[in-house]
């Protein structure tokens, strides 16, 4: 019997190596796999490349640094591929100090490069970013009269995913705007680890309503956490 559920965070995080490329979805805390990020902090892998849409808000005095920013603060991140690095954020400071390398790219290009990895597309052209700083060093070709940039797929070793519902085959459903990057990173990683609010019996999710088929999922941890909070 296929059973992708794991019983502990340690089991969920097992085997993540130093130097891994880790994808972290979520958009302003909605759909962010915060429990798994904490698990990764605990697990200890370092020298990570993290693929994440936004690298965090500016530090607020008195507010504890958590999540991805905490991973950066602990010196565990070597590189970040992202669409947002803010001045005054933990990551922004680390980039300024030269301890973290940032590849900052358009959000749509980020999403498409992740999907491309999952779909077996090694590279694609896009007009987004042509004639801008993000095209520097990239190949340009004209299609239908528009200059387009050649962008490569972003593959990951590990994806951390937050689902609303999951079954033992790893079929997933996301809630509201919590879908965002979750289905994409699940496709793009060698090892996809899911935290889920709810556990379903097999078949409880109708075939038409599965948002991420279990083929993209390796491990599922039942983690009934609260609703997402707005970032401070």
């Amino acid at each position, binding site marked *: 019997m296929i059973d992708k559920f794991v019983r502990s965070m340690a089991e969920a995080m097992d085997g993540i190596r130093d130097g891994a490329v880790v994808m972290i979805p979520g*958009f302003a805390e*909605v759909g962010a796999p915060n429990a798994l990020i904490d698990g990764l902090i605990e697990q200890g892998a370092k020298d990570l490349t993290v693929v994440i849409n*936004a690298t965090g808000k500016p530090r607020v005095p008195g507010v504890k640094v958590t999540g991805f920013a905490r991973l950066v603060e602990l010196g565990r991140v070597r590189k970040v591929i992202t669409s947002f690095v803010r001045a005054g954020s933990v990551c922004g400071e680390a980039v300024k100090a030269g301890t973290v390398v*940032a590849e900052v790219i*358009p959000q749509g290009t980020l999403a498409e490069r992740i999907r491309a990895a999952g779909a077996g597309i090694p590279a694609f052209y896009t*007009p987004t970013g042509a004639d801008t700083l993000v095209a520097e060093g990239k190949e340009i070709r004209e299609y239908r009269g528009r200059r387009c940039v050649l962008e490569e797929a972003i593959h990951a070793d590990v994806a951390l995913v937050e689902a609303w519902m999951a079954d033992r085959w790893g079929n997933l459903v996301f809630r*509201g705007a919590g*879908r965002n990057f979750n289905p994409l990173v699940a496709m793009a990683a060698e090892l996809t680890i899911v935290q889920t609010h709810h556990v379903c019996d097999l078949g409880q999710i109708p075939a038409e309503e599965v948002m991420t088929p279990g083929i993209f999922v390796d491990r599922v941890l039942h983690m009934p956490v609260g609703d997402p909070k707005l970032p401070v």
Partner: protein
Amino acid sequence: MSATEQDWAPLSRDGMAARAAQDIPEGWYVNLGIGVPTLIGNHIPPEREVILHSENGVLGMGPAPEKHRENPWLINASSQRITLRVGASLVHHADSFAIVRGGHLDLCVLGGFQVAENGDLANWSHSPKEVARQIGGAMDLAVGAKRVWVVMEHVTKDGKPRILRRCSYPLTASACVTRVYTNMAVLDVTPAGFKVVEIIPGMSFSELQARSEAELIR
């Protein structure tokens, strides 16, 4: 009235948003950028069916939720809690940007630092040397939408023009802007340059031109 006294008042942020909202017809699919563009949503009458898109996978945003009736799973690209309109749909990020990049949005309205007379837009960075880079979805929207409008103050806080012959800040996209709503005027980007559509009451063409680097067309 003496020549030094001004007989006009620039539009407020809400005034600019309301002005832009007037020009959005029923049935358009529209993405409203962060800042003043987001305010436009408040000025579209609810009976006019304009379908608002947000980069994080929401198509059909409704008005802001009432206090204590917020759904923490529904936010927009500005991380504000939102409601869904009846008829809304939710998709993942690649599908959401397929909407943007595939040319399906009738309009996106963005904030701007500078717009050039050829339609170049700079709205994300003041210098290529800046370490902090906040690109987000702006480059995708500027390139992908059928029309790109910019809403911004006509001049900077220290009075420097933003309506330029050529942008000095790093570009968001080239030759993308079709119209600009400022706190002083509405300008169309045409092959010949900026064409003035309207000026706020009391301001003359030459007063507007004096506050613009690019040459304006009547």
